[in-house]
């Protein structure tokens, strides 16, 4: 199969550790108030039922929401406090999967966010969570 092309404006994020090991992951230009990130599904990300592993979808949510939590602030670190994920539909091999993150409220050290994880216009996962920034 041919893998889907990356969306316009995709920039690889330099990462270490887990993010590097499961990546590459890309930042996309903000649009309509959403912070956007994506990755291309390969064989490493799959489960044995032929869908993207739920852990990888939650990882994308965590990485994207964590970066969005401190975007535009001078915070150096953001830590996940809680995250709830609804698994709406399976992701597939070769797809580009995108996180669209919205900041609901940013208080001084606490940030409330939500995210849709999508492929084209199909919603795969809906997430909401709380981050602490410092």
């Amino acid at each position: 199969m041919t893998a889907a092309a990356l969306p316009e404006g995709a920039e690889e994020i330099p990462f270490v550790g887990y993010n590097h090991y499961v990546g590459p992951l890309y930042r996309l230009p903000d649009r309509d108030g959403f912070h956007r990130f994506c990755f291309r599904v390969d064989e490493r990300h799959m489960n044995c039922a032929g869908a993207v592993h739920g852990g990888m979808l939650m990882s994308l949510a965590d990485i994207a929401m964590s970066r969005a939590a401190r975007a535009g602030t001078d915070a150096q670190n953001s830590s996940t406090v809680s995250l709830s994920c609804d698994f709406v539909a399976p992701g597939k091999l070769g797809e580009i999967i995108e996180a669209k993150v919205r900041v609901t409220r940013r208080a001084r050290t606490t940030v409330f966010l939500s995210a849709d994880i999508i492929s084209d216009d199909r919603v795969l996962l809906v997430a909401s969570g709380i981050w602490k920034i410092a």
Partner: protein
Amino acid sequence: MIPAGYRETKLADPFEIYLGPIHETGEKPNRRFAFLIDDRHVNRRKVMHGGMMMTYADATLGALAADLSDGMIAVTLNMQSQFLAPAPLGKIIEVKPELTRRTRSMLFIRGDFTVGSEIVMTASSVWKLLGA
């Protein structure tokens, strides 16, 4: 070091094999799991990545779901995770998943994830039994 008496868990999902191994002790459906945090699993602060913790939760709570599924496939509908404390590089993170409730087509499963005696994450999840 993985504690004595643990054996390697048989993993089928490519993503879990890529990130594993996971170890276990005890028999189905009462398995306890252990995972050694190495360089692949941490963030730049050298603590276990939240995404990795949720993947470990999905794998281990899902293992109990599979143990209880009577041959049906169990898929995750929802997972809620709370991150209480960091889990440092080189430590072992353990969990003994617990069934909270079973209905005809759903399983409610939770787990406290510990490093030593400290709870570092709690996760609760809802699983759907396909075909039930």
